[in-house]
Protein backbone atom coordinates (compact mmCIF):
# COMPACT_ATOMS: atom_id res chain seq x y z
CA UNK A 1 0.00 0.00 0.00
CA UNK A 2 2.89 2.33 0.76
CA UNK A 3 4.07 1.77 -2.77
CA UNK A 4 0.68 2.70 -4.16
CA UNK A 5 0.54 5.83 -2.04
CA UNK A 6 3.90 6.93 -3.32
CA UNK A 7 2.74 6.39 -6.91
CA UNK A 8 -0.21 8.60 -6.15
CA UNK A 9 1.81 11.43 -4.73
CA UNK A 10 4.23 11.07 -7.65
CA UNK A 11 1.36 11.55 -10.07
CA UNK A 12 -0.01 14.46 -8.11
CA UNK A 13 3.39 16.10 -8.18
CA UNK A 14 3.63 15.60 -11.92
CA UNK A 15 0.26 17.23 -12.39
CA UNK A 16 1.22 20.40 -10.60
CA UNK A 17 4.89 20.70 -11.35
CA UNK A 18 4.99 20.13 -15.09
CA UNK A 19 3.81 23.08 -17.06
CA UNK A 20 3.78 22.89 -20.81
CA UNK A 21 6.35 24.64 -22.90
CA UNK A 22 4.17 26.08 -25.66
CA UNK A 23 6.85 28.49 -26.83
CA UNK A 24 8.90 25.79 -28.51
CA UNK A 25 6.07 23.78 -29.99
CA UNK A 26 4.12 24.54 -33.14
CA UNK A 27 0.72 22.96 -32.59
CA UNK A 28 -1.45 22.39 -35.66
CA UNK A 29 -4.83 20.69 -35.89
CA UNK A 30 -7.86 20.64 -38.17
CA UNK A 31 -9.01 19.19 -41.47
CA UNK A 32 -7.99 15.68 -42.43
CA UNK A 33 -8.14 16.81 -46.09
CA UNK A 34 -5.39 19.37 -45.58
CA UNK A 35 -3.48 17.03 -43.24
CA UNK A 36 -1.34 15.30 -45.91
CA UNK A 37 0.01 18.66 -47.16
CA UNK A 38 0.80 19.94 -43.68
CA UNK A 39 2.33 16.59 -42.77
CA UNK A 40 4.56 16.78 -45.85
CA UNK A 41 5.62 20.35 -45.01
CA UNK A 42 6.31 19.41 -41.38
CA UNK A 43 8.34 16.42 -42.54
CA UNK A 44 10.51 18.57 -44.82
CA UNK A 45 10.79 21.22 -42.12
CA UNK A 46 12.51 18.68 -39.86
CA UNK A 47 15.67 18.95 -41.94
CA UNK A 48 15.30 22.72 -42.30
CA UNK A 49 14.97 23.34 -38.54
CA UNK A 50 15.98 20.20 -36.65
CA UNK A 51 15.14 21.61 -33.20
CA UNK A 52 11.53 22.47 -34.05
CA UNK A 53 8.63 20.48 -32.67
CA UNK A 54 5.72 20.58 -35.08
CA UNK A 55 2.68 18.41 -34.29
CA UNK A 56 -0.38 17.91 -36.48
CA UNK A 57 -3.78 16.56 -35.43
CA UNK A 58 -6.83 15.50 -37.45
CA UNK A 59 -9.84 16.77 -35.50
CA UNK A 60 -11.60 17.99 -38.66
CA UNK A 61 -11.97 21.61 -39.79
CA UNK A 62 -14.65 22.42 -37.20
CA UNK A 63 -13.03 20.56 -34.33
CA UNK A 64 -9.74 22.20 -35.20
CA UNK A 65 -11.30 25.69 -35.16
CA UNK A 66 -12.67 25.00 -31.66
CA UNK A 67 -9.11 24.52 -30.39
CA UNK A 68 -7.68 27.28 -32.57
CA UNK A 69 -10.17 29.82 -31.25
CA UNK A 70 -9.32 28.94 -27.65
CA UNK A 71 -5.67 29.57 -28.36
CA UNK A 72 -4.73 25.91 -27.96
CA UNK A 73 -3.26 25.67 -31.46
CA UNK A 74 -1.45 28.30 -33.53
CA UNK A 75 -2.31 26.97 -36.99
CA UNK A 76 -5.55 25.37 -38.16
CA UNK A 77 -5.88 23.26 -41.30
CA UNK A 78 -9.18 24.12 -42.98
CA UNK A 79 -10.94 22.74 -46.03
CA UNK A 80 -13.51 25.58 -45.89
CA UNK A 81 -13.53 29.21 -44.84
CA UNK A 82 -14.19 30.16 -41.24
CA UNK A 83 -17.95 30.30 -40.44
CA UNK A 84 -19.71 33.44 -39.09
CA UNK A 85 -20.28 31.72 -35.72
CA UNK A 86 -16.56 30.96 -35.53
CA UNK A 87 -15.67 34.55 -36.47
CA UNK A 88 -17.82 35.70 -33.57
CA UNK A 89 -16.05 33.32 -31.21
CA UNK A 90 -12.70 34.64 -32.40
CA UNK A 91 -13.78 38.19 -31.52
CA UNK A 92 -15.04 37.13 -28.10
CA UNK A 93 -11.77 35.36 -27.32
CA UNK A 94 -9.75 38.16 -28.86
CA UNK A 95 -7.94 35.91 -31.29
CA UNK A 96 -6.77 37.42 -34.57
CA UNK A 97 -6.19 35.19 -37.55
CA UNK A 98 -5.18 35.22 -41.20
CA UNK A 99 -6.44 32.85 -43.87
CA UNK A 100 -3.81 31.57 -46.30
CA UNK A 101 -4.62 29.41 -49.33
CA UNK A 102 -2.08 26.63 -49.79
CA UNK A 103 -3.41 24.41 -52.61
CA UNK A 104 -6.46 23.42 -54.63
CA UNK A 105 -8.52 20.28 -54.43
CA UNK A 106 -10.93 19.13 -57.12
CA UNK A 107 -14.08 17.24 -56.18
CA UNK A 108 -14.52 14.40 -58.66
CA UNK A 109 -17.92 13.08 -59.72
CA UNK A 110 -17.35 9.41 -60.44
CA UNK A 111 -19.18 6.48 -62.02
CA UNK A 112 -18.74 2.76 -62.41
CA UNK A 113 -16.51 1.95 -65.44
CA UNK A 114 -19.38 0.02 -67.11
CA UNK A 115 -21.63 3.05 -66.99
CA UNK A 116 -21.68 3.94 -70.69
CA UNK A 117 -24.58 6.35 -70.73
CA UNK A 118 -23.24 9.30 -68.79
CA UNK A 119 -20.67 11.54 -70.43
CA UNK A 120 -21.20 14.62 -68.33
CA UNK A 121 -23.57 16.15 -65.80
CA UNK A 122 -24.72 19.73 -65.88
CA UNK A 123 -24.66 21.56 -62.56
CA UNK A 124 -28.48 21.65 -62.79
CA UNK A 125 -28.60 17.86 -63.11
CA UNK A 126 -26.31 17.37 -60.14
CA UNK A 127 -28.54 19.67 -58.15
CA UNK A 128 -31.59 17.70 -59.21
CA UNK A 129 -29.93 14.51 -57.95
CA UNK A 130 -28.60 15.82 -54.65
CA UNK A 131 -31.01 18.54 -53.43
CA UNK A 132 -33.12 17.76 -50.33
CA UNK A 133 -36.34 17.52 -52.39
CA UNK A 134 -34.84 14.67 -54.41
CA UNK A 135 -35.17 12.34 -51.44
CA UNK A 136 -37.44 9.42 -52.38
CA UNK A 137 -38.51 11.12 -55.66
CA UNK A 138 -35.42 11.08 -57.88
CA UNK A 139 -34.61 7.38 -57.83
CA UNK A 140 -33.99 6.53 -61.49
CA UNK A 141 -31.46 7.63 -64.07
CA UNK A 142 -34.27 8.34 -66.56
CA UNK A 143 -35.67 11.02 -64.27
CA UNK A 144 -32.50 13.05 -64.70
CA UNK A 145 -32.21 12.81 -68.47
CA UNK A 146 -34.91 10.94 -70.43
CA UNK A 147 -32.46 9.10 -72.70
CA UNK A 148 -30.70 7.54 -69.71
CA UNK A 149 -31.84 4.03 -68.67
CA UNK A 150 -34.88 3.39 -66.55
CA UNK A 151 -32.74 1.98 -63.74
CA UNK A 152 -32.23 2.84 -60.12
CA UNK A 153 -29.55 5.37 -59.26
CA UNK A 154 -27.37 4.69 -56.22
CA UNK A 155 -25.65 7.61 -54.51
CA UNK A 156 -22.38 7.68 -52.57
CA UNK A 157 -20.88 10.68 -50.81
CA UNK A 158 -18.91 11.83 -47.77
CA UNK A 159 -20.69 12.13 -44.42
CA UNK A 160 -22.14 15.43 -43.28
CA UNK A 161 -19.22 16.19 -40.94
CA UNK A 162 -16.87 16.41 -43.89
CA UNK A 163 -15.67 19.64 -45.45
CA UNK A 164 -15.98 18.01 -48.89
CA UNK A 165 -19.69 17.52 -48.25
CA UNK A 166 -20.09 21.13 -47.09
CA UNK A 167 -18.34 22.40 -50.19
CA UNK A 168 -20.21 20.16 -52.63
CA UNK A 169 -23.65 21.03 -51.26
CA UNK A 170 -22.77 24.71 -51.23
CA UNK A 171 -21.53 24.66 -54.82
CA UNK A 172 -24.24 22.41 -56.26
CA UNK A 173 -27.39 22.80 -54.15
CA UNK A 174 -26.62 26.40 -53.22
CA UNK A 175 -26.71 25.90 -49.47
CA UNK A 176 -23.96 24.36 -47.41
CA UNK A 177 -25.16 21.22 -45.66
CA UNK A 178 -28.42 20.87 -47.62
CA UNK A 179 -28.80 17.54 -49.41
CA UNK A 180 -30.96 14.47 -49.55
CA UNK A 181 -30.32 12.02 -46.75
CA UNK A 182 -30.88 8.75 -48.56
CA UNK A 183 -27.39 8.18 -49.89
CA UNK A 184 -24.57 5.94 -48.71
CA UNK A 185 -22.33 8.15 -46.59
CA UNK A 186 -18.87 7.42 -45.25
CA UNK A 187 -16.18 9.56 -43.68
CA UNK A 188 -13.64 7.24 -45.25
CA UNK A 189 -13.36 8.03 -48.97
CA UNK A 190 -11.85 4.61 -49.64
CA UNK A 191 -15.20 3.12 -48.66
CA UNK A 192 -16.88 5.35 -51.27
CA UNK A 193 -14.36 4.20 -53.89
CA UNK A 194 -15.20 0.61 -52.99
CA UNK A 195 -18.93 1.37 -53.24
CA UNK A 196 -18.90 3.09 -56.62
CA UNK A 197 -16.44 0.64 -58.18
CA UNK A 198 -18.69 -2.35 -57.43
CA UNK A 199 -22.09 -0.88 -58.34
CA UNK A 200 -22.96 -0.27 -61.99
CA UNK A 201 -25.71 2.23 -61.25
CA UNK A 202 -23.67 4.24 -58.76
CA UNK A 203 -22.65 7.87 -58.83
CA UNK A 204 -20.55 9.43 -56.11
CA UNK A 205 -18.29 12.33 -55.30
CA UNK A 206 -15.06 12.74 -53.34
CA UNK A 207 -11.61 14.31 -53.52
CA UNK A 208 -9.79 14.06 -56.85
CA UNK A 209 -6.80 12.32 -55.25
CA UNK A 210 -8.99 9.31 -54.46
CA UNK A 211 -10.04 9.07 -58.11
CA UNK A 212 -6.46 9.27 -59.35
CA UNK A 213 -5.29 6.46 -57.08
CA UNK A 214 -8.20 4.31 -58.31
CA UNK A 215 -8.49 5.44 -61.93
CA UNK A 216 -8.55 1.82 -63.13
CA UNK A 217 -11.70 1.06 -61.13
CA UNK A 218 -13.72 4.22 -61.74
CA UNK A 219 -14.91 6.48 -64.55
CA UNK A 220 -14.75 10.23 -64.25
CA UNK A 221 -17.77 12.32 -65.24
CA UNK A 222 -17.29 15.76 -66.74
CA UNK A 223 -19.20 18.69 -65.30
CA UNK A 224 -20.88 21.35 -67.44
CA UNK A 225 -21.39 24.65 -65.66
CA UNK A 226 -23.02 26.32 -68.64
CA UNK A 227 -19.91 28.26 -69.65
CA UNK A 228 -18.60 26.30 -72.62
CA UNK A 229 -17.95 22.60 -72.94
CA UNK A 230 -18.16 20.06 -70.09
CA UNK A 231 -14.87 19.82 -68.20
CA UNK A 232 -13.23 16.89 -66.46
CA UNK A 233 -11.17 17.61 -63.35
CA UNK A 234 -7.43 17.36 -63.85
CA UNK A 235 -4.31 19.12 -62.68
CA UNK A 236 -4.71 21.72 -65.45
CA UNK A 237 -8.45 22.33 -65.29
CA UNK A 238 -8.48 22.69 -61.49
CA UNK A 239 -5.41 24.93 -61.49
CA UNK A 240 -6.68 27.30 -64.18
CA UNK A 241 -10.16 27.40 -62.68
CA UNK A 242 -12.08 25.95 -65.65
CA UNK A 243 -13.29 22.98 -63.58
CA UNK A 244 -15.88 25.03 -61.74
CA UNK A 245 -17.69 24.99 -59.40
CA UNK A 246 -16.25 21.78 -57.97
CA UNK A 247 -12.70 22.88 -57.27
CA UNK A 248 -11.89 24.52 -53.99
CA UNK A 249 -8.97 26.12 -52.23
CA UNK A 250 -7.51 24.54 -49.09
CA UNK A 251 -6.42 26.83 -46.27
CA UNK A 252 -4.31 27.17 -43.22
CA UNK A 253 -5.30 29.72 -40.59
CA UNK A 254 -2.54 31.30 -38.51
CA UNK A 255 -3.38 32.98 -35.20
CA UNK A 256 -2.11 36.38 -34.08
CA UNK A 257 -0.40 34.69 -31.12
CA UNK A 258 1.39 32.41 -33.54
CA UNK A 259 2.40 35.31 -35.79
CA UNK A 260 4.24 36.87 -32.86
CA UNK A 261 6.55 33.89 -32.57
CA UNK A 262 9.62 33.66 -34.77
CA UNK A 263 9.38 29.86 -34.95
CA UNK A 264 5.82 30.00 -36.34
CA UNK A 265 6.76 32.75 -38.83
CA UNK A 266 9.62 30.62 -40.11
CA UNK A 267 7.40 27.58 -40.41
CA UNK A 268 4.64 29.45 -42.31
CA UNK A 269 7.20 31.03 -44.65
CA UNK A 270 8.63 27.59 -45.31
CA UNK A 271 5.09 26.28 -45.84
CA UNK A 272 4.26 28.87 -48.50
CA UNK A 273 7.62 28.37 -50.25
CA UNK A 274 7.14 24.62 -50.56
CA UNK A 275 3.38 24.04 -50.56
CA UNK A 276 3.22 23.92 -54.36
CA UNK A 277 5.60 21.04 -54.92
CA UNK A 278 4.61 19.19 -51.74
CA UNK A 279 0.89 19.44 -52.53
CA UNK A 280 1.55 17.73 -55.86
CA UNK A 281 3.43 14.91 -54.17
CA UNK A 282 0.44 14.06 -51.95
CA UNK A 283 -2.17 14.25 -54.70
CA UNK A 284 -3.40 17.84 -54.51
CA UNK A 285 -3.14 20.62 -57.05
CA UNK A 286 -0.69 23.48 -56.60
CA UNK A 287 -1.77 27.09 -57.04
CA UNK A 288 -0.03 29.30 -59.64
CA UNK A 289 3.30 30.80 -58.46
CA UNK A 290 1.95 34.36 -58.21
CA UNK A 291 -0.83 33.14 -55.93
CA UNK A 292 1.75 31.86 -53.41
CA UNK A 293 3.47 35.23 -53.63
CA UNK A 294 0.13 36.91 -52.81
CA UNK A 295 -0.34 34.69 -49.79
CA UNK A 296 3.20 35.43 -48.64
CA UNK A 297 2.49 39.15 -48.87
CA UNK A 298 -0.76 38.69 -46.94
CA UNK A 299 1.10 36.84 -44.20
CA UNK A 300 3.92 39.39 -44.02
CA UNK A 301 1.35 42.17 -43.54
CA UNK A 302 -0.38 40.14 -40.83
CA UNK A 303 2.92 39.57 -39.02
CA UNK A 304 3.73 43.29 -39.17
CA UNK A 305 0.32 44.19 -37.74
CA UNK A 306 0.88 41.97 -34.73
CA UNK A 307 4.45 42.77 -33.84
Amino acid at each position, binding site marked *: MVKQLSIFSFLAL*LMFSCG*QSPQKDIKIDGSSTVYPIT*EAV*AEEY*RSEAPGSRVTV*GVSGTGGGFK*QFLRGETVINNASRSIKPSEVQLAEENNIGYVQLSVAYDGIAVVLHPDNDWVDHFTVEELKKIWEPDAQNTITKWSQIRPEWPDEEIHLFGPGIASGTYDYFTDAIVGESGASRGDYTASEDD*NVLVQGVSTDKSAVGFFGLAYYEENADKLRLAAVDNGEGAPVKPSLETVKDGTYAPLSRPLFIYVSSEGAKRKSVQDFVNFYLDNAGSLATSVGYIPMPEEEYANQQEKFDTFVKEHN
Partner: protein
Amino acid sequence: MNNAKKNRLKDKAFEWVGIFASVIGILILAIFIGFILYMGLSRLDWDFMASLPSRFAEKSGIYTAWIGTLWVLGLTTLISFPVGVGAGIYLEEYAKNSKLNTLLEVNIANLAGVPSVIYGLLGLGIFVRMMNMGSSILAGALTLSLLILPIIIVATRESIRAVPGSIREASQGLGATKWQTIWNQILPASFGGILTGVILAVSRAVGETAPLIVVGALAYVPFAPRGPMDEFTVLPIQIFNWVTRPQHEFVINAAAAIIVLLGITLALNGVAVYLRHRWQNKMNW
Protein backbone atom coordinates in the same frame (compact mmCIF):
# COMPACT_ATOMS: atom_id res chain seq x y z
CA MET B 1 -40.24 -41.83 -33.08
CA ASN B 2 -40.51 -42.12 -29.33
CA ASN B 3 -39.76 -39.40 -26.84
CA ALA B 4 -36.25 -40.55 -25.91
CA LYS B 5 -35.18 -40.61 -29.54
CA LYS B 6 -36.58 -37.18 -30.12
CA ASN B 7 -34.72 -35.83 -27.15
CA ARG B 8 -31.48 -37.40 -28.28
CA LEU B 9 -31.96 -35.81 -31.70
CA LYS B 10 -32.56 -32.41 -30.11
CA ASP B 11 -29.45 -32.94 -28.06
CA LYS B 12 -27.40 -33.69 -31.15
CA ALA B 13 -28.88 -30.72 -33.03
CA PHE B 14 -27.99 -28.35 -30.24
CA GLU B 15 -24.45 -29.66 -30.19
CA TRP B 16 -24.11 -28.85 -33.87
CA VAL B 17 -25.56 -25.38 -33.43
CA GLY B 18 -23.02 -24.83 -30.67
CA ILE B 19 -20.12 -26.05 -32.80
CA PHE B 20 -21.27 -23.89 -35.70
CA ALA B 21 -21.49 -20.83 -33.44
CA SER B 22 -17.98 -21.33 -32.08
CA VAL B 23 -16.44 -22.11 -35.43
CA ILE B 24 -17.95 -19.13 -37.20
CA GLY B 25 -16.40 -16.67 -34.75
CA ILE B 26 -12.98 -18.28 -34.93
CA LEU B 27 -13.19 -18.63 -38.70
CA ILE B 28 -13.93 -14.96 -39.24
CA LEU B 29 -11.14 -14.02 -36.86
CA ALA B 30 -8.75 -16.37 -38.67
CA ILE B 31 -9.65 -14.91 -42.07
CA PHE B 32 -9.20 -11.41 -40.71
CA ILE B 33 -5.83 -12.13 -39.10
CA GLY B 34 -4.67 -14.10 -42.12
CA PHE B 35 -5.57 -11.22 -44.42
CA ILE B 36 -3.81 -8.68 -42.20
CA LEU B 37 -0.68 -10.85 -41.97
CA TYR B 38 -0.72 -11.40 -45.74
CA MET B 39 -0.96 -7.67 -46.39
CA GLY B 40 1.29 -6.31 -43.71
CA LEU B 41 3.92 -8.86 -42.80
CA SER B 42 6.28 -7.99 -45.65
CA ARG B 43 6.17 -4.32 -44.63
CA LEU B 44 7.08 -5.08 -41.04
CA ASP B 45 10.77 -4.57 -40.37
CA TRP B 46 13.04 -2.70 -38.03
CA ASP B 47 12.94 0.45 -40.18
CA PHE B 48 9.18 0.52 -39.94
CA MET B 49 9.38 0.35 -36.14
CA ALA B 50 12.05 3.05 -35.96
CA SER B 51 10.86 5.61 -38.54
CA LEU B 52 8.87 8.79 -38.07
CA PRO B 53 5.63 9.43 -39.98
CA SER B 54 6.21 10.57 -43.53
CA ARG B 55 4.30 11.47 -46.68
CA PHE B 56 6.09 8.61 -48.45
CA ALA B 57 4.36 5.44 -47.37
CA GLU B 58 7.47 3.33 -47.79
CA LYS B 59 9.57 5.68 -45.63
CA SER B 60 6.88 6.09 -43.01
CA GLY B 61 7.02 4.31 -39.68
CA ILE B 62 5.36 3.92 -36.31
CA TYR B 63 8.17 4.88 -33.95
CA THR B 64 6.31 7.67 -32.15
CA ALA B 65 3.04 5.72 -32.27
CA TRP B 66 4.22 2.59 -30.50
CA ILE B 67 6.22 4.53 -27.95
CA GLY B 68 3.14 6.68 -27.33
CA THR B 69 1.03 3.56 -26.96
CA LEU B 70 3.45 2.12 -24.38
CA TRP B 71 3.49 5.42 -22.45
CA VAL B 72 -0.30 5.61 -22.35
CA LEU B 73 -0.47 1.95 -21.42
CA GLY B 74 2.01 2.29 -18.56
CA LEU B 75 0.43 5.39 -17.08
CA THR B 76 -3.09 3.98 -17.44
CA THR B 77 -2.04 0.87 -15.53
CA LEU B 78 -0.32 2.91 -12.81
CA ILE B 79 -3.42 5.04 -12.31
CA SER B 80 -6.23 2.54 -12.71
CA PHE B 81 -4.65 -0.33 -10.75
CA PRO B 82 -4.58 1.19 -7.24
CA VAL B 83 -7.86 3.07 -7.67
CA GLY B 84 -9.76 0.16 -9.19
CA VAL B 85 -8.47 -2.49 -6.80
CA GLY B 86 -8.98 -0.17 -3.83
CA ALA B 87 -12.58 0.49 -4.83
CA GLY B 88 -13.15 -3.23 -5.37
CA ILE B 89 -11.82 -4.12 -1.91
CA TYR B 90 -13.92 -1.44 -0.30
CA LEU B 91 -17.14 -2.49 -2.00
CA GLU B 92 -16.58 -6.18 -1.31
CA GLU B 93 -15.11 -6.12 2.19
CA TYR B 94 -16.05 -2.90 3.94
CA ALA B 95 -19.19 -1.48 2.34
CA LYS B 96 -22.34 -1.87 4.42
CA ASN B 97 -25.65 -2.51 2.77
CA SER B 98 -26.59 1.15 2.73
CA LYS B 99 -28.54 3.07 0.09
CA LEU B 100 -25.39 4.97 -0.91
CA ASN B 101 -23.49 1.78 -1.56
CA THR B 102 -26.30 0.30 -3.62
CA LEU B 103 -26.27 3.49 -5.65
CA LEU B 104 -22.49 3.19 -6.10
CA GLU B 105 -22.76 -0.40 -7.24
CA VAL B 106 -25.52 0.25 -9.75
CA ASN B 107 -23.59 3.17 -11.18
CA ILE B 108 -20.34 1.26 -11.53
CA ALA B 109 -22.17 -1.50 -13.37
CA ASN B 110 -23.76 1.08 -15.68
CA LEU B 111 -20.50 2.92 -16.29
CA ALA B 112 -19.08 -0.22 -17.89
CA GLY B 113 -21.64 0.23 -20.68
CA VAL B 114 -21.05 3.90 -21.48
CA PRO B 115 -19.64 4.43 -25.01
CA SER B 116 -15.95 5.25 -24.94
CA VAL B 117 -16.28 8.54 -26.82
CA ILE B 118 -18.32 9.90 -23.89
CA TYR B 119 -15.32 9.27 -21.64
CA GLY B 120 -13.30 11.21 -24.18
CA LEU B 121 -15.58 14.23 -23.82
CA LEU B 122 -15.37 13.94 -20.05
CA GLY B 123 -11.58 13.81 -20.25
CA LEU B 124 -11.53 16.82 -22.57
CA GLY B 125 -13.68 18.85 -20.17
CA ILE B 126 -12.01 17.86 -16.89
CA PHE B 127 -8.40 16.86 -17.53
CA VAL B 128 -7.50 18.78 -20.68
CA ARG B 129 -9.32 22.04 -19.96
CA MET B 130 -10.32 22.35 -16.28
CA MET B 131 -7.14 20.85 -14.85
CA ASN B 132 -5.14 22.45 -17.64
CA MET B 133 -3.16 19.40 -18.64
CA GLY B 134 -3.48 20.08 -22.35
CA SER B 135 -3.52 17.22 -24.85
CA SER B 136 -0.88 15.36 -22.88
CA ILE B 137 -0.18 11.69 -22.31
CA LEU B 138 -1.30 12.13 -18.72
CA ALA B 139 -4.71 13.50 -19.80
CA GLY B 140 -5.10 10.58 -22.22
CA ALA B 141 -4.06 8.02 -19.61
CA LEU B 142 -6.43 9.45 -16.98
CA THR B 143 -9.28 9.32 -19.50
CA LEU B 144 -8.55 5.70 -20.39
CA SER B 145 -8.24 4.90 -16.68
CA LEU B 146 -11.79 6.16 -16.12
CA LEU B 147 -12.87 4.04 -19.06
CA ILE B 148 -11.50 0.79 -17.66
CA LEU B 149 -12.07 1.40 -13.93
CA PRO B 150 -15.52 -0.26 -13.91
CA ILE B 151 -14.02 -3.40 -15.50
CA ILE B 152 -11.22 -3.54 -12.93
CA ILE B 153 -13.60 -2.98 -10.02
CA VAL B 154 -15.92 -5.74 -11.17
CA ALA B 155 -12.99 -8.14 -11.77
CA THR B 156 -11.55 -7.37 -8.32
CA ARG B 157 -14.87 -8.03 -6.63
CA GLU B 158 -15.37 -11.27 -8.51
CA SER B 159 -11.97 -12.63 -7.53
CA ILE B 160 -12.32 -11.57 -3.89
CA ARG B 161 -15.71 -13.24 -3.76
CA ALA B 162 -14.15 -16.44 -5.07
CA VAL B 163 -11.94 -16.76 -1.97
CA PRO B 164 -13.60 -19.41 0.25
CA GLY B 165 -15.40 -18.00 3.32
CA SER B 166 -13.69 -20.55 5.53
CA ILE B 167 -10.31 -18.84 4.94
CA ARG B 168 -11.71 -15.53 6.14
CA GLU B 169 -13.28 -17.15 9.21
CA ALA B 170 -10.13 -19.08 10.06
CA SER B 171 -8.00 -15.96 9.84
CA GLN B 172 -10.34 -13.95 12.03
CA GLY B 173 -10.69 -16.91 14.37
CA LEU B 174 -6.94 -16.77 14.96
CA GLY B 175 -7.27 -13.16 16.00
CA ALA B 176 -6.28 -11.38 12.83
CA THR B 177 -7.86 -7.98 12.23
CA LYS B 178 -9.92 -7.31 9.16
CA TRP B 179 -7.02 -5.56 7.45
CA GLN B 180 -4.60 -8.36 8.28
CA THR B 181 -7.05 -10.84 6.87
CA ILE B 182 -7.38 -8.87 3.64
CA TRP B 183 -3.67 -8.21 3.25
CA ASN B 184 -2.34 -11.63 4.21
CA GLN B 185 -5.08 -13.97 3.03
CA ILE B 186 -7.67 -12.49 0.72
CA LEU B 187 -5.43 -10.41 -1.55
CA PRO B 188 -2.75 -13.08 -2.14
CA ALA B 189 -5.45 -15.62 -2.88
CA SER B 190 -7.31 -13.40 -5.31
CA PHE B 191 -4.37 -11.57 -6.83
CA GLY B 192 -4.12 -13.80 -9.89
CA GLY B 193 -7.73 -13.05 -10.78
CA ILE B 194 -7.34 -9.34 -10.06
CA LEU B 195 -4.25 -9.07 -12.24
CA THR B 196 -5.96 -10.93 -15.04
CA GLY B 197 -8.84 -8.47 -14.85
CA VAL B 198 -6.53 -5.47 -14.83
CA ILE B 199 -4.52 -6.71 -17.79
CA LEU B 200 -7.59 -7.58 -19.84
CA ALA B 201 -8.99 -4.14 -19.09
CA VAL B 202 -5.73 -2.47 -20.08
CA SER B 203 -5.55 -4.46 -23.30
CA ARG B 204 -8.98 -3.11 -24.13
CA ALA B 205 -7.67 0.40 -23.55
CA VAL B 206 -4.82 -0.22 -26.02
CA GLY B 207 -7.25 -0.38 -28.92
CA GLU B 208 -9.25 2.72 -28.04
CA THR B 209 -9.15 5.50 -30.63
CA ALA B 210 -12.23 7.65 -30.16
CA PRO B 211 -11.65 8.96 -26.61
CA LEU B 212 -8.02 9.78 -27.42
CA ILE B 213 -8.94 11.70 -30.58
CA VAL B 214 -11.41 13.73 -28.51
CA VAL B 215 -8.80 14.36 -25.83
CA GLY B 216 -6.54 15.65 -28.60
CA ALA B 217 -4.06 12.92 -29.40
CA LEU B 218 -2.37 13.89 -32.64
CA ALA B 219 -1.69 12.14 -35.91
CA TYR B 220 1.74 13.56 -36.72
CA VAL B 221 4.20 13.70 -33.85
CA PRO B 222 7.82 13.67 -35.01
CA PHE B 223 9.36 13.16 -31.57
CA ALA B 224 9.06 10.45 -28.94
CA PRO B 225 7.47 11.75 -25.74
CA ARG B 226 9.93 12.46 -22.94
CA GLY B 227 7.48 12.95 -20.11
CA PRO B 228 3.82 12.55 -19.22
CA MET B 229 3.02 16.14 -20.19
CA ASP B 230 4.17 15.74 -23.81
CA GLU B 231 1.87 15.50 -26.80
CA PHE B 232 1.49 12.07 -28.21
CA THR B 233 0.03 9.77 -30.81
CA VAL B 234 -0.93 6.12 -30.48
CA LEU B 235 -1.08 3.16 -32.83
CA PRO B 236 -4.87 3.12 -33.39
CA ILE B 237 -4.81 6.77 -34.48
CA GLN B 238 -1.91 6.15 -36.85
CA ILE B 239 -3.79 3.17 -38.32
CA PHE B 240 -7.00 5.18 -38.67
CA ASN B 241 -5.10 7.97 -40.37
CA TRP B 242 -3.45 5.60 -42.83
CA VAL B 243 -6.53 3.68 -43.94
CA THR B 244 -8.23 6.92 -44.98
CA ARG B 245 -5.37 7.96 -47.27
CA PRO B 246 -5.95 7.56 -51.02
CA GLN B 247 -2.64 5.81 -51.74
CA HIS B 248 -2.79 2.03 -51.45
CA GLU B 249 0.72 1.83 -49.92
CA PHE B 250 -0.59 3.50 -46.77
CA VAL B 251 -3.15 0.73 -46.35
CA ILE B 252 -0.26 -1.76 -46.31
CA ASN B 253 1.40 0.36 -43.62
CA ALA B 254 -1.84 0.24 -41.67
CA ALA B 255 -1.89 -3.56 -41.89
CA ALA B 256 1.68 -3.72 -40.59
CA ALA B 257 0.78 -1.38 -37.72
CA ILE B 258 -2.24 -3.56 -36.92
CA ILE B 259 0.09 -6.55 -36.61
CA VAL B 260 2.17 -4.63 -34.05
CA LEU B 261 -0.98 -3.60 -32.15
CA LEU B 262 -2.24 -7.20 -32.18
CA GLY B 263 1.19 -8.26 -30.94
CA ILE B 264 0.99 -5.87 -27.98
CA THR B 265 -2.53 -7.07 -27.10
CA LEU B 266 -1.50 -10.70 -27.45
CA ALA B 267 1.57 -10.18 -25.26
CA LEU B 268 -0.59 -8.55 -22.57
CA ASN B 269 -3.07 -11.41 -22.66
CA GLY B 270 -0.20 -13.87 -22.49
CA VAL B 271 1.08 -12.17 -19.35
CA ALA B 272 -2.44 -12.37 -17.89
CA VAL B 273 -2.66 -16.11 -18.52
CA TYR B 274 0.81 -16.67 -17.06
CA LEU B 275 0.10 -14.65 -13.90
CA ARG B 276 -3.18 -16.38 -13.27
CA HIS B 277 -1.45 -19.73 -13.61
CA ARG B 278 1.41 -18.76 -11.28
CA TRP B 279 -0.80 -17.40 -8.54
CA GLN B 280 -3.10 -20.38 -8.68
CA ASN B 281 -0.23 -22.75 -7.97
CA LYS B 282 1.20 -20.56 -5.25
CA MET B 283 -1.67 -20.71 -2.83
CA ASN B 284 -1.74 -23.77 -0.61
CA TRP B 285 -3.67 -23.48 2.59
